[in-house]
Structures are given as C-alpha cells and as structure tokens.
C-alpha cells in the first residue's frame, strides 16, 4: 500500500506544492483587505513550520554530525561537556539562577566583541587607505583633482555633522555641518531608492509565481477536473456513482435547511428577549 501512496505522492507532488503555495499566498495577502481568521491561521502555521523545521535541520546538519556521531560512534566522550555548557542557556527561565545563563550569553557576546580588533583592521584600514585620494592623480591636475576635491568635501562635511563633543558655534563648522546633513540626504536617497526596488522585487516574485506558475497549473487542473465530471455525468459505467451522488446531495440539502431554520429560531429568541 505504501508503494502506491509513495508513487502517487511523488508523481503529484509538484502540482500539490503549487496549489498549497497559491493558497498560502492568498491567505497572507487577505490581511491587506482586512484582519481575518484565514490570515491568523496561516500565520500560526508559518511560525510552527519555521520552528519545527529549525529543530529538524539543526539536528540533522549540526548536532547529529558534529556532536552525536563523534560522541557515540567515534568514542569522543568529551563532547558531553558541550551539552552541559549548552544547558546553561536554559537557566534563563529559573528566577533564582538566571545569572548562570548570563555566563554563556556573556561568553558568546565576548567572542563577538573579541573580534573587533581584527574587524577594525581588516575592514577599515583599507577604507582609510582608499580615502587617501591624490589631488593630482598621475602627476597632472585635471578631472582627477575635481573628483578628489568633491570626495573630500562631501566626506569631511558629512563627518563634521556627527561631532558631538564641541559646539557647532564657529560659522565655518556650522555651515560645514549643515552642508554635511544635505549631502547625507544623497546617501539616504540612494538607500530609499534601493529599498523600494528590493521590496518591489519581492512582490514581483510572488505575483510572477501566481501568474506564470500557478495560473497555467490551475487551468490544466480545472480542465482535467471538468473532463472527469463530464465522464462521471455521462458515461454508463458510472451510473451507480451518479445515483449515490444524487442521494448524498439530497441529504445535504435537507441538513442545510434544518440548520438555517434552527439558526433563525435562535436569532428570534435572542432579539425577542432584547425588545
């Protein structure tokens, strides 16, 4: 039995994926119209999937190969100390011993902070170096000088804007800082334009999926479902199926009528009591 299921799943998984992905996209975009239960449900499914996937991938690609296998199969018993250190994180939840979690958090913050010396050298020494632009590149004064002067004017005025320990009273300093804030606007304009482009690209990616991947899939599936319906409705072979479907439909109609009738009575009783 599992072979047929595995075969069917493997065969149809791409169309199932496309339909589920479209369903999720519509569910999330429905919040644009109004907050609704459909969005709330899929948001929780998202958080659940992300966390569940996190546990699986962390075990299968880090804790498994780098901790469990060396410890159990290769005999490196000392890896158990890593588990003890890892357990210190969870003291965060005990109110008396919360400071023990601060030891392990402190360790990781210290490691990040410890890298600042190399960080400053590797990232900013070349930045300082390439900021030393010759005013006369190649020994002659011309367009190179203009671009170097523009570079220095902009950079130094923008830096002056961010000095806080002395007053910007002196007119030269005050105007440089003012100009600095104006030049900063060019930088923020670039970030603004780039952010708009980035966010639109993400939206275009989703719409492209709906239009060029899901729509053709939906079209071919509806055509297949339609053909199946026509077959069921007309072919003699499916007579018994037609009969049972008709009976089911009738039963459903009856149930619906009863349900709405009862809701009507309940509403009357409620409004009745209010008047």
């Amino acid at each position, binding site marked *: 039995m599992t072979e047929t299921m595995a075969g069917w799943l493997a065969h149809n998984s791409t169309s199932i994926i496309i339909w589920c992905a479209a369903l999720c996209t519509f569910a999330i975009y429905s919040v644009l119209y109004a907050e609704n239960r459909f969005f709330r449900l899929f948001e929780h*499914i998202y958080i659940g999937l992300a966390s569940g996937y996190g546990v699986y991938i962390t075990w299968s690609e880090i804790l498994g190969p780098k901790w469990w296998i060396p410890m159990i199969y290769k005999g490196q018993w000392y890896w158990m100390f890593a588990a003890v250190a890892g357990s210190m994180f969870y003291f965060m939840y005990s109110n008396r011993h919360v400071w023990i979690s601060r030891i392990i958090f402190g360790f990781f913050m210290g490691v990040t902070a410890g890298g600042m010396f190399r960080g400053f050298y590797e990232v900013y020494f070349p930045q300082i170096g390439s900021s030393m632009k010759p005013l006369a590149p190649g020994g002659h004064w011309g367009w190179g000088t203009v671009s170097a002067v523009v570079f220095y004017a902009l950079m130094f005025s923008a830096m002056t804007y961010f000095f806080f320990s002395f007053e910007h009273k002196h007119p030269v300093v005050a105007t440089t800082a003012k100009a600095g804030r104006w030049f900063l606007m060019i930088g923020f304009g670039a970030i603004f334009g780039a952010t708009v482009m980035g966010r639109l690209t993400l939206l275009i990616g989703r719409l492209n999926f709906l239009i060029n991947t899901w729509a053709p899939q939906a079209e071919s599936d509806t055509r297949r479902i339609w053909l199946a319906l026509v077959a069921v409705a007309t072919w003699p072979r499916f007579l018994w199926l037609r009969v049972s479907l008709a009976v089911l439909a009738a039963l459903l109609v009856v149930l619906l009528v009863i349900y709405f009738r009862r809701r009507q009575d309940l509403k009357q009783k409620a409004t009745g009591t209010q008047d």
Partner: protein
Amino acid sequence: MTILTHNQWSAISTRFYKLWVVTIADRHGWQLAVFITGALLVGALAMWMLMSVPTRFRKPIVMAVTFLGGLILALEFLISTDTWHPLTDFLPAYGNVQMVIGSFALLLGLVNLFMIHAEAVNKRTRGWINSFAFFVAFFAIMIAGFVKDYAAAKAVSGSADSIYTVFFEGFLMPLSSTMFSMIAFYIASAAYRAFRIRSTESALMMITASIIMLGLVPAGQYLTSGLPGWLYWLRLENVSYWLLTSPNMAVQRAMAFGIAVGALATGLRIWLSLERGSFFDRQL
C-alpha cells in the same frame, strides 16, 4: 617585531598536545558509556557548584568568562609572528565547539512559544484553533524530516520525503516570502499618502532616489536614450551610477567611520563589561 619564533611555539604546543592525546583518547563500548556518564556527572557537579556561588562573586565570574571568550580571537590577531602561530590553527576547532554549544540554544525560542500556545489550547482562549495549528505544523514537518532520513523501508522514506517537500516548498517558503513581500504594499500606500516633500532636505533625498530608481531599470535608460552622443553623461543610468559611486560612496564612508569607532566602543564596553548605570544594572 616577534615575541616567539615559530619553532619555540611548536615546541611548547607539542608537549601540551601529547598530554592532551593521552587524556582524550577515543573510548569504545562500555568504556565509552562510563566516560560519558562520568562527564555528565562532572558537568552536573559544576552546575551545582555554580548554583551555590554567593551573589557577590557572580558578576566577576560573568565578566571573566566574557573577557576570556573574546581573548582568544583578540590574541590571535594582536600577537604578531612572521609566519603562523598555534592560535590560528586552533580556530577551526574553536568554531566547531561554538557551533555545537550555540545550537543547543535553538530550543530557547521554542520554550516560550510552546508555553504561550499550550496555554491558549488548554484554556480554549479565543483563537485556540490557531495555537493547535501551530503544534500540528511544528510536529508535522519535524517528523516528516526525521522519517525521511532515518526510515528503513524505501517506500516509507520516499513518501515522507514527498510530504516533507510539500511542507517546505508548499507552505514554509511561500508563507515567508509572501509575508516579507507585503512591505511593498505599505511602501506604495505610504508613497501616495505620507511621503511629503516639506524641506530642501527631503526634496534632495527624493530627487536622488528617483534618479537612482530610474537609472537601474530599462524604462529609465529608454527615457534618456534619445540624448546625442556627447551628452552621454546625462543619461539616467550614467547619472545614477555616478551618484552611487561618488557622492553616495563618500557619504556612506563618512557614516561608516562613525560606525567603525562606535563598534569599537560598543565592543570594548561589552568585552570589559563596562555597561553600568541605572537601567543597565537591572537587565545585564
């Protein structure tokens, strides 16, 4: 300017290395079980001792561990030798240990997520269906993943693999990329209803933004493609490229030098645990 030559370093480290190999030789079978439980006991003992440390020693211990954690990376860079020294050889192993210990922190976020949703399900508060869906989704993809890897029967692991793929590509990927793409709608509505050009500053910013946005896409290039040859530098893509690589670069570098010194200051304050003062004492 070298403190120790390379062979002096290697002489010291080889002696330590021999001692190290003897203590941590691989154990197998029952010996392995003994050593693991031994390590667990030693760990538990250490935890117990930590719990009974008097409060006045707690802050110094946290400060010391924070400092030592950073010391290895700081010394690896600040100790200067002509060729190489053992601290650099030690880094890949140091990285592995950090990776493993860090991965144990994964369940941290999960603990309060589970607490919130379990409470919602038990008390049937409004919207408990969503919390129930959270648990279903959480265990469904996790179990599908593990069954996919560890199931014996080929057919079982095959169908688990398909289910896992449906969950990953059918639900997790579209949900997270759709959630993130919503911001484009907020930008569009803010563009019409909120982005106001009130001062020369915002005018300068908006003009730069428009030029750069048009310069990156074919429409912008088409708009100014009519310009004659010698005016090529006025073409939108060229103006946008100049804006990005000259004024924007200079201004970003000015801000970067501020961030560079700021990062050094923040790093120092964390490394030497200098964060003190009314609010910080309460939290850190």
